[in-house]
Every structure is written in structure tokens, then in C-alpha cells.
């Protein structure tokens, strides 16, 4: 940094001014890391040589000052303060060999790394934005329209359109994810279709269970659905006058028979 050459007293004045500005401007920071980075600048050294201990001091002093001024500090600032206080004690005390976990130096090194990385990204962002930019420093072709010859319509959509479309559907009503549970459902329509084709052969009383579709008898879930649908379909056919149905007693087998018009007349 060029400021390295500053006189000692100039630095301290600048530091004091900076510290005061910090207090007033607490809302201007984007979180504790941003604040730490700003504080670290007052050390006037290369970020790689920063004193994390000193930085912890500065941060804790800042939080203390903010408390005195009764400034509302967001929770994450306080969490960072607690962590830095912990780090400070680790850095100051001789390492306890029995203690688990990373050493104070390792934690400090990581914090320094985070600060350096954030600063590097800010510098990179500044360099990026300082580049020549399309539409500002260099320009695309102004007259791109050409002789119309072939008129062909293509349709375009962006990924954003797609995702917005999907989001629209998903937020429109309570979304039911589509699952394969339909596998195990035999609808009444399906049962009716099936029964209509079969009742022609049901001259004599037959157990309703023999009408269950193939492949639906074994699995209990499927069997339940198929039984219910077949029963409902049978009732419908009785109502339509195509079928007779009977059950001798509770829980006895239900039996079906094709309604015979001749027989009907005789009874």
C-alpha cells in the first residue's frame, strides 16, 4: 500500500477519523466480514501480514463502542464478536496440548485467508468493470437487418421463460407431485369396460371375485382397488338391467348372473 509512507501521527489521525466514521456508518457494512476488512485497512500492511490479534481487538472495541452508543447491532456482528473473543483467548494463551480442535493460529490464518480472498474478489470486480464494455466502449453492428428472402418462423424461449412458466404452475395451486400411485388404481370405468365384455358369458351364478382382472389378484393394494371397482361396476350394470346380483348372508360371496329376459318374464 502506498500509505505505508505516511507519517505516524497522520496515520493515527486518519485512523481515528476512520473509526468514528465506522461507528456512524454501521449500516453501511455488508456484514461482519466486510467490517473486518475495512478495519484491517487501518493496519496499513499487506493483508497477508495482517495481525489477526490486533484485528480482533479492533473489532471488539468497535462492538463495545457501538454498545455504548446504544446502536443496534445485528446478531451476526455479535456472533462474530463472540468468536473473535474466543480466538483472541486462544491466540494469547499457550496452546494446551490436550485440547481438541484447530489451534488459534490455524483459525487466525483462515480468517486472514477469507479477508484476503474477499479483497481479491473486490479488486477483480473493479478490474472487470473497468474493462471496455460492449455498448459503452466498443459496439456491435448497427444495421443488422438484411434483404428479406426466406420467411421462416422460429420460436424462441429462454431458460428463464421456462423456469418462470414452471414456477407459475407450481405456485398456482397446491401442487401435487405426480407419482406413480396410479399404477395401483383400477378405475370404475375400466371395470365397466371389462364387465360389459364378460357378462355375456355369465349365464349362471358366478363369484364376483372371478371377474377380477388378470394380474390384480395378488398384490393386496391392487386387489382392493380392483375389487371395489368391479363391485361398483356390477351395481351399475344391475341398475342398467344387464345383471342380477345376490349375497346369501353377510360376508358371504357375492354372486353375479346375466339377467335373462325370458327368465325374467317367467318370474
Amino acid at each position, binding site marked *: 500500500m502506498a500509505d505505508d509512507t505516511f507519517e505516524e501521527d497522520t496515520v493515527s489521525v486518519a485512523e481515528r477519523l476512520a473509526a468514528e466514521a465506522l461507528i456512524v456508518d454501521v449500516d453501511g457494512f455488508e456484514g461482519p466480514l466486510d467490517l473486518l476488512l475495512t478495519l484491517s485497512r487501518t493496519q496499513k500492511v499487506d493483508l497477508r501480514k495482517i495481525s489477526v490479534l490486533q484485528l480482533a481487538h479492533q473489532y471488539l472495541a468497535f462492538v463495545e463502542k457501538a454498545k455504548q452508543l446504544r446502536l443496534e447491532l445485528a446478531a451476526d456482528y455479535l456472533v462474530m464478536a463472540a468468536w473473535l473473543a474466543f480466538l483472541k483467548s486462544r491466540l494469547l494463551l499457550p496452546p494446551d496440548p490436550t485440547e481438541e480442535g484447530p489451534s488459534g493460529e490455524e483459525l487466525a490464518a483462515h480468517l486472514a485467508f477469507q479477508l484476503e480472498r474477499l479483497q481479491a474478489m473486490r479488486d477483480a470486480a473493479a478490474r472487470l468493470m473497468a474493462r471496455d464494455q460492449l455498448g459503452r466502449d466498443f459496439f456491435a453492428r448497427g444495421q443488422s437487418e*438484411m434483404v428479406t*428472402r426466406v420467411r421462416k418462423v*422460429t420460436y424462441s424461449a429462454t431458460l428463464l421463460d*421456462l423456469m418462470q412458466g414452471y414456477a407459475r404452475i407450481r405456485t398456482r395451486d397446491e401442487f401435487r407431485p405426480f407419482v406413480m400411485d396410479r399404477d395401483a388404481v383400477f378405475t370404475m370405468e375400466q371395470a365397466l369396460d371389462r364387465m360389459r365384455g364378460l357378462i355375456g358369458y355369465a349365464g349362471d351364478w358366478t363369484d364376483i371375485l372371478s371377474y377380477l382382472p388378470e394380474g390384480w389378484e395378488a398384490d393386496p393394494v391392487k386387489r382392493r382397488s380392483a375389487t371395489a371397482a368391479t363391485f361398483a361396476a356390477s351395481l351399475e350394470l344391475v341398475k342398467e338391467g344387464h345383471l342380477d346380483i345376490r349375497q346369501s348372508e353377510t360376508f358371504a360371496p357375492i354372486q353375479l348372473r346375466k339377467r335373462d329376459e325370458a327368465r325374467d318374464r317367467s318370474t
Partner: protein
Amino acid sequence: MTEAPEEKEESLFEAPPMAEQERMCEAILFATAEPITIRELAARMPHGCDPAEALVYLRKRYEGRGVQVMKIGDAWAIRTAADLGFLMQKETVETRKLSRAAIETLAIIAYHQPVTRAEIEEIRGVSVSRGTVDQLLELEWIRFGRRKMTPGRPVTFVVTQTFLDHFGLENARDLPGLKELRAAGLLENRPPPGTLPGPESEDDEESTEGQSELFED
């Protein structure tokens, strides 16, 4: 005697060398949306430039090239060489935005593939017109997948490589999930009036899971 000071004044505003003036004309002709007159050129270039002369050089430079410096009325423009007009057919392609129905259908296929027409209709809550599916098939963004092992063995739809290319995806699994859509601010839109009221279902945790299950291999 009176001419001397004038000459001196001119040298204060010395114009850039002719080669530089030619570059300037080239850049301006390239970037303007309309043909441009000598007067306009002179107004945009540094004081003392002579765009008319620069254009003579520029025009010569482009002789026999793929584009030409042409005079149109009293203005100048860069145009495609007449013999290369056949290359410009693609410029006449008209792009239209995909309809909302098509976008939604496409999104459902992408997120739920393989998916049947009945399932799409169930999710969208309205029937899917034949034209919509045909359009997506024609664009080669969707194709028929394998039949579903359910009664009627309905045909399913899946998205194609062309779809992935168009949307810059390497894989349909890279589509962002519901949570990520929300995080990106894409789920901000409240449901349009007239649809079911009630809180935006916060139980989407569950549906996200259901959905991601479909993407697991």
C-alpha cells in the same frame, strides 16, 4: 501576411492522420443504425477531419471484399456484397416467443419426464391442445419416450438434446429445483387473481423431494 496566423491556428487543431480518419469512418459506418451523411460524419469526428477523403480510401479498401462501402442517396453505409446475398437467408428468420401454454407444457415435460399427456393435463389443470405438442415436437425440443406400463400403455414425452442445447443445459437434471427457483426470486409471483386463494403452499419441501426423485438415476 494575414494568412500566417490562420495557418498557425489550424496546426493547433491538427487533424489525425488519414489512416486514422479512415479507421474512424469504418467504425462509425459499422455501428450506426442508419446510413450516415458526410456532414454527420464530420460532426462526429475530431475537428479538421475530412471524411469525404477518408471514405474514398475506405471504399477502395473494401473493393472486392465480402462487404462494400456504398453510397445510398447522399449517405454512406456498409452493405453485404451483392454476390453474397445468398448467405443472408438466415437473417430473415422471424423469431417469435413461444406461447405460454407451450412454455408451460415444455416445462412440465422437462421437470417430470417421462410424462404422459394425461399427466401434463393433470398438472396444468387444462387440456393440452394438439397444436402445442405438435409445435414442441416440430421444434425438436420434445420427442416420444417409451410407453408407460399403465393401462392403455400411454405414450410419454421427454426432452431432446436439441432442447438441452437451446437452453444451455448439459442435463435435464441440471434444471433448478423449486427451492432454487424461489431463492433466485422466480417464485415471487403471487398466484394470479381468480385462482385458488390460500397461502403459497409451504409444504413444497415435500414436492421438491418428489420431484428430485424423478431426477435421480
